[in-house]
């Protein structure tokens, strides 16, 4: 894992290249599309006239809606009134809440009180030990760690970094335990796996913000909501990969263990778990990355730490200060990612027989710990606890000036091209408006039918049912028009993302230099808290839906580029060589060989693009997207849970519709 992962990484079980065999429908020469759609078409012929006659053909009929806002608002009022007296709270939820508060503040106090020097020394030595005390990799890792921590201090963010690190430490530990237990269940029991899989699949496409609202309802604003949201968000990859690892255990080894008379527990502890440790570590890696991205988003509900610094800087429109808080997040991500990846790789390698024994195993650990304690004690005695003020550098002024210059020159008056604001206006008037009006004018039953048909084509009957039911659900909870507005923005965003992503991806896959330059940029873009984009995006595109789409594109682009590059790279070199020797030009090679062969990966890129663009809908709410994004922000900030939660659910439903209608690989692997 050299790359920093996306907040919603492509799940390993949906391997892109796993298209097993061509579906029978495709191999037949007759119209396969028609054949597959036939049953649906027959059903539609019967049902649509009835539905249209009963409820008309405009927007979603009000007769079919249910009022969910009032009960939700009532529930919130009840919670507020009874938080101190109801047994549900007194004996369960408040324990959770108090435990979260106290464990996080304990951890923060610990890290802050230990002081910056021992913490840095500890982190450096830990990474060194994990990377290998003797190997170059360990040394490099130690260097990265030192640079990262020093940078956090230099930027004046030491305390905020420690707060974030404390929250992370607790969240990751709990996520890993819960995810590990679930994965254990999923790996050992088929029935459990069957229940777990769809839940994890759905959780993966839920935007991070959607987790915040129900928790705010129960726990109010503050650390508990943030912590629990992070745990819930970060646990799935651990569960998924643990289960995967346990299931993938070599049958021969298991049989051997059994024939030696090992009991089920012995087999689990001595064979199955050790064989799965690589997957489990990869799961841990993913869990850490997801927790980090959530921790910053959770600042919206008062998580504190670096996310709050970003947020606070934005209130004075100070991009520079926001960036100063954003950079430590990127550095933490790099450090944690590299360290866990190194741990995973080293497990696979086994030990080097020629190594000095003092530096390995338990002895290596105790040596590391001993050196750490001594150096820390000396350092702590010589230096003060807090990061010295003289060692900080204020980057906010130069960054702000640079941004002003940048936006000032791109926004308007660019010869011929017109500048970004002109584009934004054009995009709103000529793309977003017609798309939204078109969707709103479409009869409701037709949209449900289209969702069903696309789901059927993409993934079979299960996907069809999910897509259609989700689409109808949006109508039932009475947010039809707002959802279509958001859907139009999402579609536009996905199209732009794919166009740009494929373009850049194709170039990067063919020109190695471009890819090398792009990689660190993509890593940074993926880990930087999305809030930092708010101000530049508004300065460039004006408040409105165009700005929201631009923010979404920026967010989804790195993943799409990366998957595209990977897909094109995996194309069999022999096929490419053959086409070249047949005299195919560069464009012919791309069009006729690379793209068709990389199709599964490109489909995955489409799916990821859709999921990520939708995840940004709520960030869009902060720059004037209106519709669902605004409703969620409104709900969070005004604690109007009825509005917020309904909009959140609608986003999840839209996500299900878009996911099921774009996910081709699911049909091939035969999952529901």
């Amino acid at each position, binding site marked *: 894992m050299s790359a920093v992962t996306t907040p919603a990484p492509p799940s390993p079980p949906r391997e892109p290249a796993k298209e097993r065999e061509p579906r029978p429908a495709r191999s037949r020469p007759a119209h396969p599309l028609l054949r597959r759609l036939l049953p649906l078409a027959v059903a539609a012929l019967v049902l649509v006239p009835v539905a249209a006659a009963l409820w008309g053909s405009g927007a979603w009929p009000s007769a079919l809606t249910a009022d969910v806002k009032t009960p939700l608002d009532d529930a919130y009022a009840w919670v507020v009134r009874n938080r101190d007296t109801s047994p549900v709270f007194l004996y369960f939820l408040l324990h959770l809440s*108090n435990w979260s508060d106290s464990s996080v503040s304990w951890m923060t106090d610990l890290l802050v009180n230990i002081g910056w020097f021992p913490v840095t020394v500890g982190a450096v030595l830990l990474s060194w030990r994990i990377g290998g005390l003797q190997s170059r990799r360990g040394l490099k890792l130690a260097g990265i760690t030192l640079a990262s921590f020093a940078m956090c201090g230099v930027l004046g963010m030491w305390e905020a970094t420690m707060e974030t690190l404390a929250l992370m430490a607790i969240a990751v530990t709990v996520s890993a335990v819960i995810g*590990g237990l679930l994965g254990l*269940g999923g790996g050992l029991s088929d029935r459990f796996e069957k229940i777990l899989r769809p839940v994890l699949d759905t959780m993966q496409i839920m935007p991070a913000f959607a987790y915040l609202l129900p928790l705010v309802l129960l726990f109010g604003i503050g650390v508990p909501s943030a912590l629990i949201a992070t745990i819930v968000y970060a646990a799935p990859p651990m569960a998924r990969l643990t289960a995967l690892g346990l299931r993938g255990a070599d049958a021969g080894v298991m049989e051997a263990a059994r024939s030696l008379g090992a009991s089920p527990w012995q087999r689990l502890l001595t064979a199955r778990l050790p064989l799965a440790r690589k997957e489990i570590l990869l799961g841990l890696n993913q869990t850490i990355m997801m927790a980090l991205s959530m921790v910053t988003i959770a600042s919206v509900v008062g998580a504190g730490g670096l996310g709050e610094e970003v947020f606070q800087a934005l209130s004075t429109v100070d991009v520079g200060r926001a960036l100063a808080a954003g950079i430590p997040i990127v550095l933490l991500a790099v450090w944690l990612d590299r360290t866990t990846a190194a741990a995973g790789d080293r497990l696979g390698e086994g030990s080097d027989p020629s190594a000095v024994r003092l530096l390995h195993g338990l002895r290596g650990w105790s040596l590391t710990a001993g050196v750490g304690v001594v150096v820390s004690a000396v350092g702590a005695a010589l230096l003060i606890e807090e990061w010295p003020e003289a060692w900080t550098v204020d980057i906010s002024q130069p960054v702000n000036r640079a941004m002003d210059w940048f936006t000032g020159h791109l926004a308007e008056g660019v010869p011929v091209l017109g500048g970004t604001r002109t584009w934004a206006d054009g995009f709103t008037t000529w793309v977003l408006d017609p798309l939204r009006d078109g969707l709103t004018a479409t009869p409701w039953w037709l949209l449900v039918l289209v969702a069903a048909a696309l789901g059927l084509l993409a993934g079979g009957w299960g996907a069809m049912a999910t897509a259609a039911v989700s689409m109808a659900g949006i109508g039932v909870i009475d947010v039809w028009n707002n959802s279509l507005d958001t859907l139009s923005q999402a579609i536009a965003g996905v199209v732009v993302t794919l166009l740009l992503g494929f373009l850049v991806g194709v170039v990067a896959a063919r020109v190695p230099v471009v890819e090398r330059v792009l990689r660190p940029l993509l890593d940074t873009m993926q880990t930087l808290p999305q809030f930092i984009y708010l101000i530049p995006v508004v300065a460039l595109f004006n408040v409105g839906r165009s700005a929201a789409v631009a923010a979404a594109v920026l967010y989804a682009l790195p993943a799409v580029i990366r998957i595209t590059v990977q897909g094109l790279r995996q194309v069999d070199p022999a096929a490419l060589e053959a086409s070249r020797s047949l005299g195919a030009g560069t464009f012919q090679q791309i069009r006729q060989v690379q793209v068709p062969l990389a199709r599964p990966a490109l489909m995955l890129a489409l799916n990821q693009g859709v999921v990520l663009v939708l995840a940004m809908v709520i960030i869009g709410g902060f720059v004037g997207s209106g519709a669902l994004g605004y409703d969620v922000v409104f709900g969070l900030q005004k604690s109007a849970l009825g509005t917020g939660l309904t909009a959140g659910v609608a986003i999840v439903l839209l996500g299900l519709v878009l996911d099921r209608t774009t996910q081709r690989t699911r049909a091939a692997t035969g999952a529901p």
Partner: protein
Amino acid sequence: MRMKNPNPAGRKNPNPGGSRTRLTRAAGAAAVVLGLTGLTACGAADTGSSSSKGSSGSVTIAVPSWVGAEANAAVAQYILENELDTKAELTQLDESVAFDALNSGKVDAILEDWGGAPKKVDLYVEDKKTVVAGGDLGVVGHIGWFVPKYLADEHPDITDWKNLNKYKNLFKTAESGDKGQLLEGSPSYTTNDDAIIKNLDLDYKTVYAGSEAAQITQMKENYKAKKPFITYWWTPQWLNAQLDLVEVKLPEYKEGCDAEPEKVACAYAQTPLQKYFNADFTKEGGDAAQFLKNFNWTAEQQNVVASMIADEKMSSEAAAEKWVKANKDVWQKWLP
């Protein structure tokens, strides 16, 4: 992952077929047992509000996302920590959410409330009595519709709402279509604008920037390019020192004209900004609580600190320190 085996019988009977299900069953049983002990071992949880918080020499102040409030909190924090030897923590919370935190005791004080959450005030102050009113901050807030001065100079009659329809074409954007765009701020701010537009028959559309950051960026960019715009805005605000804005006159505010949100057709009131405290904190907070009750300053004084933070990009601590050192006579009166 190490777990205790709650089912030792599993070891005696190495039946290969049933081993998996038995394992999962055992794991399930362990989880249930763990969960149950977690639930029952401890009694009722501490609700926080009735705890001894506040008396132990630590105060938590809610800071909403605007800079004026940051100035209040920073100055209060500086004086609390340096004069009263009380540790003060600041937590960033939006207006209405802060009341929930005040109720639960997670926060001890709100220093600047714009009256944006009347329902919460009713619930906590009148009904549950967990929150008490803390009197005026001294600053009077006012919300209104504002246009830049260069626009008012060009079209002097634009500052009367009756002429707004005449000028709507100036304010058209891609978002507002063929109506004029009235720029709005964060969803958490108090606004009647949709009702006002409807009831005054104005051909305008509210476009929500979604956050104060987006709104300010948009205003600054428009101002830089000398473009016309009309926006929901308020005083005191640090940005007013940078941008010269003129208020548009709406029908005069009369007591009670904004009682029904749907039917509002008048200007916003002059709002003396209020302080609110957690009820237990006022009883047990000692000197710190008394100091916060006495805390009272003018819009000008607040603006000095706010623009140090916002314009000069000083940290709020540094700004507070500078102001406190220069204005001893003002804050001496607040000390108990």
